[in-house]
């Protein structure tokens, strides 16, 4: 794929996702925004923990969020928090669907 082709593909993908995302990633974020986003991510990850199914990438995203916030980069901190929340939620979906899905691959 050419560089222009790649850029176009990424552009359309990002446009689709920006539309899909409920919050605007373009406005500058404040510390309060970060705290809200981080709390939501932590809560989701905690729920995943109660299901005994946390992901290492969630932990990494949470750490990245915290690090960015400490450095004052709240845009990044919010972005990482939202990523962490998405990953945590996905891990919850995984644990929930696997409650039945595992039977399909059992050797009988």
């Amino acid at each position: 794929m050419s560089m222009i082709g790649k850029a176009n593909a990424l552009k359309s993908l990002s446009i689709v996702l920006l539309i899909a995302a409920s919050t605007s990633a373009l406005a500058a974020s404040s510390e309060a925004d970060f705290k809200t986003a981080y709390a939501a991510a932590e809560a989701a990850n905690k729920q995943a923990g109660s299901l005994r199914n946390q992901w290492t990438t969630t932990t990494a995203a949470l750490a990245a969020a915290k690090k960015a916030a400490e450095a004052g980069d709240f845009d990044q901190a919010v972005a990482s928090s939202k990523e962490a929340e998405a990953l945590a939620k996905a891990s919850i979906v995984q644990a929930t669907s696997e409650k039945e899905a595992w039977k399909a691959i059992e050797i009988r």
Partner: protein
Amino acid sequence: MRSAIQFASAALALATLTLNAVPVAIAAETADPVADARAFQKYFTEKFPKVKLKDFVNGPYSMNEDMHRQWEEKEQFPPYDFSLDAGKEMFSKPFKNGKSYADCFPNQGIGIRQNYPYFDEKEGKVITLELALNRCREANGEAPLSYMKDEMAALTAYMAFTSRGKPFDIKIPNDARALEAYQNGKRYFYTRRGQLNFSCASCHVQNPGERIRAEVLAPALGILNAMPIYRSEWGGMGTISRRFTSCNSQTRGVPLEPQADEYRDLEYYLSYVSNGLPISGPGARP
């Protein structure tokens, strides 16, 4: 732009999961360990007709001719030798209170590895060998060992060695809790986890003999028989606890505590379905 890509990765992860959650006609969950073990062993022996049942305990070495030859040479002078000798010494050394490991185990701890894990009906839980060793230490005023390597690996290496050749003889007593522990272990084995969405079965049931990156995958049948192992990848010894936790993190799942209920139940299940296969530990792996 970066945040958009991060959203993309999370969205993709979600999408993959929903794609995999295909509704199938799933049979009712009935527990029949005897039938399970029979089906389990049949699956692998049919998949690899040239491999003798007892040779499944050699993991990747039974899957690959060239590796098998190298492994045979290596067995003449195995890398776990140092750990095994250390384990023998440790096992016979008394605790500060004068007692020793022999006092905690049947038959003085010799030739009993094939009976672990077992279901303790008083406690209502699965007891693994590693857990039993640490409980023995604590009962005699000694600090518990880390479950992952070093001393724990040396001790279990020695105990496995004294049981070499003896077939796995795991029992499920007529107790609903034991059956539940077995079922939990089975469920854990087949459940996908971690961001990479692998279950233990993804590699060890669906792809034994195939490669994951440069490694040849071992079959699940007999996979615990060679534990603990000197793993070249680790540059040292590792226990069952080490393997379970590292397996989790390799699929990007946060590992549970060593000897968590889930791991104990998993060990129970995996050992039971390998009943009849000989203990070959300690082992060496790539």
